[in-house]
């Protein structure tokens, strides 16, 4: 699957949770949404992109993947 498309989708999710004032809750919200709605292979590609340092991931997605990577893997 096209990593660029998945990154766009993840960034969109982060944009919604960005209005959450508590950054811990925002990060958890992004991770929880991806865990609950994304097929595992999509999640794996996203994690691979984060590991590879893809700079198009917005910081909130990076944080969510960093803090909740185990759940998403």
């Amino acid at each position, binding site marked *: *699957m*096209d990593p660029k*498309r998945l990154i766009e*989708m993840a960034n*969109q*999710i982060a*944009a*919604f949770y*960005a*209005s*959450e*004032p508590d950054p811990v809750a925002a990060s958890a919200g992004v991770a929880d*949404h991806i865990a*609950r*709605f*994304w*097929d*595992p*292979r*999509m999640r794996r590609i996203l994690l691979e992109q984060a590991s590879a340092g893809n700079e198009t991931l917005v910081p909130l997605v990076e944080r969510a993947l960093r803090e909740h990577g185990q759940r998403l893997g």
Partner: protein
Amino acid sequence: MSLLQARDLGTPARAGEATVELTIDGIPVRTAPGTSVMRAAAEAGIAIPKLCATEQLEAFGSCRLCVVQIAGKRGFPASCTTLVEPGMEVSTETPAVAELRRNVMELYISDHPLDCLTCSANGDCELQDMAGRVGLREVRYAEGESHVHEPADRSNPYFDFDPSKCIVCSRCVRACGEIQGTFALTSTERGFGSRIAAAGGEDFMHSECVSCGACVAACPTASLMEKTVVELGTPQRSITTTCAYCGVGCSLKAELQGDTLVRMVPDADGGANHGHACVKGRFAWGYATHGDRITKPMIRNSIRDPWREVSWEEAIGHAASELRRLQHAYGAESIGGITSSRCTNEETYLVQKLVRTAFGVNNVDTCARVCHSPTGYGLKQTMGESAGTQDFDSVLDADVVLLIGANPTDGHPVFASRLKRRLREGAKLIVADPRAIDLVDTPYVRAAYHLPLRPGTNVALVNALAHVAVTEGLIDEDFVAARCEGDSFDKWREFIADPRHSPEAVAEITGVAPADLRGAARLYATARNAAIYYGLGVTEHSQGSTMVMGIANLAMATGNIGRPGVGVNPLRGQNNVQGACDMGSFPHELPGYRHVSDAVTRAAFEAAWGVSISPEPGLRIPNMLDAAVAGGFKGLYVQGEDIAQSDPNTHHVTAALESLECLIVQDIFLNETAKYAHVFLPGSSFLEKDGTFTNAERRISPVRKVVEPLAGYADWEVTQLLANALGYPMHYGHPAEIMDEIARLTPTFAGVSFDKLDRLGSLQWPCNDEQPEGTPTMHVDAFVRGKGRFLLTEYLATDERSTRRFPLLLTTGRILSQYNVGAQTRRTANIRWHEEDRLEIHPADAEDRGIRHGDAVSIESRAGVTVLRATVSERMQPGVVYTTFHWPASGANVVTTENSDWATNCPEYKVTAVQVARVESPSAWQRDYARFDAEQTALLAGERDGAPG
């Protein structure tokens, strides 16, 4: 009229206790205040003769056939317009009354053709019945001037108007006004000269008539009559079933002669429609026997090969072996399925069960993905249940209706009629829509506010509405304190009160005048009962889910939840899209909206189904397509959907379909998706099977087999055959057994059964021990999730914005006479109202581009180009263009992009940046499509003509 309809009590029932006591023909009667004498008599079993009266309409008092005598009152009052009074003594059959009625009837018959034996209404005519009832034996008037030779108007494709048989009772005129709310008919002139006419003096076809059939149903003679009855004769038996078009889910009576369907008549007892219907459900059912129906299974190795008709056994065996081959070669997760929102609950349940058991994956999705998936998500997050909160009747208690991104007169016409009735009674309407839809200004209805927002700015608008409510002290503090989460409300209140959400601050974004927005907010927030109704103009955006949450926030903050007249009401598109979602069609949810990661739920299904179920979500439709293009998804079973036409970015969709090694399509026609298929399994129409549909108000209604399946099997049977061929046993004998399984495994359906549906007619879920007869209004005492939850809904501009290259915004929608991809309605006479999709464009935008009405114009986006003819219309605002997508060659979705809702991947159909220009020829895509379509038709035709495969 309907030969087989229930007894008609003459005038509408009145609410209230039966406190008025009177006697009719010496019989003591007790009835509600405001009841007519006619109805009171009928309730006591006394049928007073009548012609102009029907319980579907308010009394009119014109025919004078229902006269009675009342002790102490002078003359002969009409029983339909005379209301009951305490102590009244009514005589319905006196010699004087009888003579008067005979004289009245004699006058009617003196100007009526005496051709009863050859009349299309013979045996189904109230005039004929009443002539007998009053004992008319002769007509003493000499022949003279009459109407009996007036020519008939046969312009409408579904019914004739024969003025020679008209008794000018005005039932048709009143039905058009009171029931339908269109006011297209009128009674011209007076006395002998009076006649019924379509407004404007035109024939029916070219008038404002919307062909709902209310006038035909109301007509007591053959003056307005279905052409099928004229052709075939009066029906002899009736089966009550449910319409297979929009999410209103009208109850219809299929009336037959032998095994031939003669007509569909709206069911007066229908909980969703109360005896009304629209041009689709009432008349556009001929597709079910259209010559394009495919009734033999077919297979082929490649989409460039001719189709080969095979036995059911071979087709199913081939499909099963291909699916297993793909799983062996590419992994279990390389295949999936799509359930149909046009099929029954039982059928969608079975498809998702097939995918989760025989396929062993959660790769199942449904067309709600591309329409109301944000509704399911947004309402679940805020209120705890993925469904609308009210029944349709609730609108009759609304004082203010906020209509957002919906066009009910086209998309949900029977609900629109009820809404218009309430608006005529004085309720106020706010329309938030980029277009000036009909409800903005239509006979006897004028919106208090039209908020013509720019496409893509819904969230800014709803935030501004809530901002006004919060900052002007219009919050229902008691409701919020008692019913909602305090923390989430406090956080939301602070968020929404920020000046950046004020109408003035967002005016630049939305294009809506701040004063109008403030006025609308105050109107909504201060109403006794304010209700929100919305459609795909809310959901099909990159912030579709956010907007649904914003709507829920607004309704909860103003206390407009949990009683009749209020609520959050998604107007769902397809007949069973609610049901398809309820039945576990989403890749992350089991039936009843329970996440696959929920171990308790999963264990219940695993025990019942005898398999283990993955706790991980599967692929959604757009993910399946992306995975197919990437090479990791190889096989797909599609029941009754047409993603090649309906899903966005046609180039991407067809590329994905072409990359599949096995596409199995089950449908009644070789639809656009089936042109890319390797296995075609003939489907059954809604007339050919038993089951249930669930409409937008959560109403589960029975679908009953009217004729045998043309291909030999109902759709649920085909799915069962496939499951068995894959080695997973399914042995249901009847859909009732499937519903029993659903009820056992799904708490919200625990009290549903075919037996109960037969008894009660329909049931609104939740239906269980606590609510054994269903739940018309949800969240009455508490939200399903306990406390209502406010969520922060920051407005974010879509990435799809107008640019110098693509300066206009395209939005898409539907039209009354057509239904979604048009597979059904294009195969009916409805095409006479809509022969092509056109591009609506504002006169200023048209003039800038040298475009005149009717010109061919290209519509180009970053995704593709198509060409349509232009309709120059002031319904559009400058900068916005609009089209429908009912014809495949139109290529509306060639232009739309893969942009989607952040939470659900629901496509952003409602916003595509485009440029429009005058052209002389079709687009390259359209030329390619025409070639491909011709090629696929030839590959099918060869088989159908018996040519070698």
